[in-house]
Each structure stands twice: as C-alpha cells, then as structure tokens.
C-alpha cells in the first residue's frame, strides 16, 4: 500500500475519526485507525465497537492495500509534519514509512484483518434530513442526557419519527429537553430509537450547517451518511419512558426575559452557590427578577434583571446549571419561562418548537 496525500486533508480526516478511539481499551486494535486504499482514494475507519466512523478522502494511490495504525499517534505525527505533501508507504509487516520534506517516520501498525468488521445493515428505514435541522435539534437537547449509568435508557437522545414530526428528547429525571419539529416522512416509517451519548456527540461534530444527510435506522443500529463521512452506532435497547407525563399542562404565569441577560446573571450568582444545596433563588415580582444565592459559609450574591412578568410574587429555586444549560445552547434573544407555582416544574420555551422542563428545588426558609 502506497499513497501520496495532502497534509491538511489527512489531518482533518484523522481529527474527525480519532475521537471515537478510546484511550483505555482491552483490545489494542481499537486504538488503531483502519486505512484502506483503493482506486477511489483513502478510507479511514475507527470504532469502539459501539460507534464507528468512516471517512473517505482523496489521495494519490500508487498501490492499493489496507493496514491499521495507532490513531492518536498518527494524528499527532501528521499534525507536526513540515510540508504539505506526505508520502505514505506500508510494507507486508504493517510497518509504515511516512516522509514529508526532511522528516522521516517509521510507525508500526497491526494487520487490517484484526480490525472488527462493522455490522452490515439489514432491513433499514431510510430517509434524508436537513443537516442543520438535526444539528440544532441535537444541540438543544443533548445537554440534558443523563450520565447515571444505572438508568441506561436515559443515556442517550430519544428520537421519535412519526405523525409528521421528528421529536428529540433527553432527560435525567430532573429536567427534560425536547424539540418537536414538523417534518414530512413517508408513511410506514414510524420508529423510535435511543441514540447513545457518544454517537450524539460525534454526530454533532460531523454535522455542518448546510446540506442533507441520509439516516438509516434498524431496531438495533443507526447509520448517518453525510458529506464524505459515515457514522454507524448501536442503539440503546429498551423503552424510553413516557416523557409526556412530566410536561406540565397549562401554565399560570409567563415570564419573558432576555436570554443572554438571564444567562449572565445566573452565571455570576451561581459563583456563590454551595455544593450541598446547589440552588439559587429566583424571585419574580412586578417586572423584576431577583436572582440570589446565599450560602452561610461562603457569602451571598444577588442580581436583579428586568423581565416581563405581571403575576404575583413568586419565589422558585433552581439548580443554576440546569437553568444555564439550555440558555447556553439556544440562540434566540428572548425566552419564556412558564410557571404554575413554587414547587411545580417550570417550563422554558422559545418561539420555536422547543421546551425544557425543569424541576424546582425546595426553597429552604
């Protein structure tokens, strides 16, 4: 196997696939990237057995073949190479020589036959979807994914297709983020899957602001084909709980507030939150919102911002991180906070099909 390749192209592709490679793995082959050279160019693949990413790039192939190389090491070598053209050659013992200008490297790899074969898709439901739409929807929901491994069904984004809607939901039991987007799908494609966190993160990295991607879904696997990349992931098995149960009905009061102002105020006040209670107080009263934190052993902080609110005085306590997470991931100027009372869940909304349920914490008197 022998090829000549542009440094930037190679580096870019290696960066994109190397995130999947786990640092601590029992199988050494899993920290390697599979390189396959054929007439069409070079194909790079990495996998952790759950998520697999492949990417095709252009290269000047003189001899076809396949090998695997330690992914992180190769990426850091390529990043540091001095010239833009790289000569890459592998012998029968999977030892690669890399030449670039005055530099010379010899890297020992493993045979490509050891690299796990990525499961083929059987009968899959396929459709195309706008990249930007999916990227935005993932960004608006993925931060609410639970990290509690004992609740493995919550360790991903629940993705539902049907009734002319694409619904994405993530929750950890104390907050829930949901995007419900109108989308036409061919009938008979109704399906609900749970995409694991790692795949969600990788997918967000791959998605760009334009173009479409092809999604293939089976009961146990999902595939995403976009640009020159292909991501295949195992799905989380199990039933996602019925999230609609926790979305409160009609709200009594609505607060309108500027997103960034709120975000910055919460960020500041949260500096004085103590680890035990980890809550800050929101006092809504007559077009004002006073955000305060009070920890006997640290000190206190308060910030007052202007909001639109004409209901009665209401004091609700929230975990500041739970308030900031959606604010950080939205771009709208204004957000609405719907409230019922001091202990019912609050709902954060925007002018687009998005909602975020957040449980109040108990206000200590």
């Amino acid at each position, binding site marked *: 196997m022998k090829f000549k390749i542009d440094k930037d192209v190679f580096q870019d592709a290696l960066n994109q696939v190397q995130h999947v490679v786990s640092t601590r793995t029992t199988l050494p082959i899993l920290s390697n990237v599979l390189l396959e050279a054929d007439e069409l160019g070079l194909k790079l693949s990495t996998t952790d057995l759950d998520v697999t990413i492949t990417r095709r790039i252009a290269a000047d192939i003189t001899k076809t073949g396949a090998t695997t190389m330690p992914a992180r090491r190769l990426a850091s070598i390529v990043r540091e190479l001095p010239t833009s053209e790289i000569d890459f050659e592998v012998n029968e013992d999977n030892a690669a020589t890399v030449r670039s200008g005055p530099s010379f490297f010899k890297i020992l790899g493993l045979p490509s036959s050891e690299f796990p074969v990525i499961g083929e898709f059987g009968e899959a439901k396929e459709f195309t979807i706008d990249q930007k739409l999916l990227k935005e929807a993932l960004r608006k929901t993925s931060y609410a994914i639970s*990290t*509690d491994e*004992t*609740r493995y069904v*919550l360790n991903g984004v629940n993705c539902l297709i049907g009734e002319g809607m694409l619904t994405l939901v993530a*929750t*950890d*039991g*104390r907050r829930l983020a949901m995007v419900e987007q109108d989308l036409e799908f061919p009938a008979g494609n109704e399906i609900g899957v749970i995409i694991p966190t790692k795949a969600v993160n990788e997918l967000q990295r791959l998605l760009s602001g334009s173009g479409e991607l092809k999604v293939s879904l089976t009961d146990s696997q999902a595939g995403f084909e976009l640009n020159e990349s292909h991501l295949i992931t195992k799905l989380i098995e199990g*039933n996602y*709980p*019925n*999230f609609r*149960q*926790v979305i*409160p009905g009609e709200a009594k009061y609505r607060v309108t507030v*500027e997103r*960034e102002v709120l975000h910055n105020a919460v*960020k*500041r006040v*949260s*500096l004085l*939150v103590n*680890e035990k209670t*980890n809550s800050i107080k929101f006092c809504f009263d007559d077009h004002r919102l006073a955000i305060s934190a009070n920890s006997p052993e640290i000190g206190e902080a308060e910030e007052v911002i202007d909001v639109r609110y004409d209901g009665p005085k209401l004091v609700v306590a929230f*975990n*500041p*991180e*739970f308030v*900031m997470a959606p604010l950080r991931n939205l771009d709208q*100027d*204004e957000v609405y906070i719907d409230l*019922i*009372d*001091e*202990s*019912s*869940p609050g709902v954060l909304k925007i002018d687009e099909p998005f909602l975020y349920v957040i*449980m109040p914490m*108990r206000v200590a008197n």
Partner: protein
Amino acid sequence: MQPHYPLDATKPIDPSKLKPLWKQVSQDLRKDLGDPTFDLWFADFRLTSAGPEGVILLAPGSMYLIWVEENFKESLGYTFEKYLTGCGPIRCELATEEELAKDAEKASQKARKKKNEVTELRPRVLVEEISEAKLLERGRAAGLVETFRFDNFVSGENSELAWAAAQAVAVQPGKTYQPLFFHSACGLGKTHLLHGIGWESLRLRPKSKIIFVTAERFANDYIDGIQKSSLSPFRKKYRQADLLLIDDVQFLGRKEGLQREFFHTFNSLSDLHKQIVLASDCPASEINELEDRLVSRFQWGLSVEIHRPGLETRAAILRRKRDDWNMTVSDEIIDSIVERVRGNVRVLEGALIRVAMVATMNDEPIAPEAIDEVLADICGGDESQQIGIKEIKQAVAEHYDLEVQILNGKKRTARVAEARQVAMYLVRRLTDLSLVEIASSFGKDHGTVIYAVKRIKAKCEASAALKSTVELIKRRLVQSSSTVGSKRPQKVSQTRDGLKSSGVFEGGEG
C-alpha cells in the same frame, strides 16, 4: 380504627394498615408540596409494603418513577419518618414491568450525588501586554481611526484641560469624570481626543470592550433595530461596552425616541461605572431640543471646551504635522503660516500642504514673503475671526436703531431686550468668546447669555420675521468682514473638501 402513629416498622407492617398510612403521608405531602405538584406526581402512587426491608411505592409509569426518585426522595423520607420508626429505605417500583422495576431498585440504592459543575468565570486579566498588530486590529474593530492617538495630539493652552481629562479617563475609566463631555467648534481636536482615549484604554486594557460611534451611527443602529423589531442586539451592543465614545452628540437634538434610548443606555452604563465620553460642537445646554434630563446628565460629569489654538500651539501643531508627513518646510515658513492662518486645525493643515506642494513644484523653498500669495484664499477666510463683539453690537444697534450703550445697559423694554438677546446670540454664533466673556461685555452673567441664545433660537424657529432679521444682520457682518479679508469664505470649505477627498483627513467632523 385509627392506628397510633408512629408505627413500629422494625417488623413488617400489616397490609391493612398500609392504605391509611399512605393517606396520612399523602396529606402531609400535599400540604408540603402544594396541590398542583402533588397531583402531578403522586396522585397514582400506591404503597405496597413497609417494614425493616424498606418502603415500597408503586409508580404508575417509568417517568414518574424516575422524576419522583430524583426530586422527591427527601420529602418522602422525612414524611414517612414521622409515621414509621425503624423502616428501611424508600424505594419506588414500576407498577407493571418487572425488569424496569429491578433497575429502579438498583438505582435507588445507589446514591446519586452528581456534582454539578459551576461554569467557570475566568478572572479578568487587568494588565496585559498587547502586540501592536492586535491593538490595531481591535481598535479598528471598535471603530477607532489609527491616526488619532494620544502620542500625536499636540496640546496647548487652548486644550490643556481637555487633554488632562482625556488622559485621566483613559487611565481610570468610569472613576473620575462621568461623563466626559468635550465641546468646541469644528476642527479643534474633539474627535482626535475621543479616538485617543479609545486607543489608550485599549492599550492599557486590551480585553475591554470599546465602542466609538458618531451619534448618527448610533441613530442608524437604533433605527435598524426598530425596523427589525428587535432592539436587543442594539442594546446588547451598546450596554455591554466598557467605554463608549460618541462623537457629534448634537445630532441627538430633536430626536425624541433616540434620546430616550440614549438616556437608558447612558443610565445602564453609568450604573455599571462604565466610562462615557461625548463630543459635540456646542455645549450640552445649547443642543437643539435636547431633553432636560439628558442635558443635566451631560453636564453632570466634566464638560470641557477646547478653544482655538494660540500662535505657539498652532506652530507646534504644524511642526508636528510636518515631521509626521516628512515635509521639508522650515520653521520660519511655519511661523509665517500660523501668523496668517487662524482657522481650525484642518485649515492649518491645508495651508501647510499647499505651501509644501508649491515648494515641491517650484523645486525651491518658498520665501516667507511669497506665502501671502500662496495662501491668499485661506488667510482671513475664517469668518468668525474677523468679526468681533464690537462690530456685532454695532450692527445690531444699527438695525434696531438704538445706541450701542443701551445694549450694555439695564433697560428692559421689549425692543431693547430683543436687540440685546439677538446681539448675544450672534456673538455666541460668530465668535469664539466664552459665555463668561460675552456676559461680562454686556454686564450680565453667563446664565443670561445661555438664556438669550436659547430664546432667540426658539423664536427664530417660531417667527420667520425674527429669523430673517437675524440672518440679515449676520449677512451684513459677514460681508463687511470678508471685504477686510481677501476672498470669500466659501473657498475655505472647498479647500477642506478637496483635502478630505484626497484622503488626508479621515473620520473628522463634517
């Protein structure tokens, strides 16, 4: 039969007592959490067993189970404690699916104390070295013009106070003078100082957010915001500035909506102790139809007037310019230029350029005597230099058919009062004299002069007759003065425009 609480839970509780127990606990929870919350979460829960092994609640759905465990574990705990002694941990189980129930059990035994990361606020670096290239890049982004910096500002007796205030503000923004307000006739260095403050602050605090705009640009941004019916980007832009520099604030006059917005911007910045520096071609009190609350705010900090430079300062400015532009013009020539040209700095610069150009064309240094010829249309071109307070009083008195002395006297009949006010107005308009100087020449105090100027301005708008009177007197004055000078003053503005288009001046006042 009403059981006696608390029940002993060291032995399993008799199933018949579970229902009343749950009822009791429910009541307490309802009181504690409020009706809507209780109804939303606990309405369909059932208590299935209680004892040393633990308390088991059956949840009607997996989401209920998860959320109740995450959010109400504590409430459940202390409520059950009131009615049971020695019971085991509280667990929730899913009513139907056994598999899920087991998972839930495992989960409930494992304490979940997720440490919540507080987003870090990085400490702000107060003093930081910044490379010139970065400085230029940031300065340009802030709207600053690179030729206007502190190190090429020539300060003289005319601008001492302004110069000192500008330096103080650049070093300690928001502390000393809030706001700092410069006013002067055009071409005397207001804009230069404004930009200079910006550059210096940026050099001292590279991270600070600096905005330089003209009031017109501010207005356009505001109008843009209204058109797009979203003012928040506008507000965000201006209300997050650490240093806001606004040129030509007289442009705010007569624009009510803009003034209101500006008022709020002003307040929110000064509440945060952010520095505001303003420049205008007249004192705040004389800006046309500026709301009183804004006037008082403009006068609140330090208001400094930049006067016309004296002879030495004019010479210093031109020598500086000559060195900056690498011209070969002798000090003598410069001295003779500044003796002849008394206008603003732009006119001075124009004169210097012309002299240098003529010298290059003829390929020999220009003789001081020839300067008069070269600068024929610039010398004495500035109308205000030629008209003195005496001429104005005379012209006004003549027009109203009064003795000049009466204008200086105490008589206050309508006719005399109007004549006096018109005279004050014209002196203010056509000369560089300060309010105090004008007042003393009329034997009044400066408040009277301010009042007179305002009143005549207002009256002129209301009455065409008075307006034409004032214009007539003004025209006569200007004409008589231009016969003293060599040519008509309009030429001056042409020269200025010419210089502007040749790119010598950037971003100055129009």
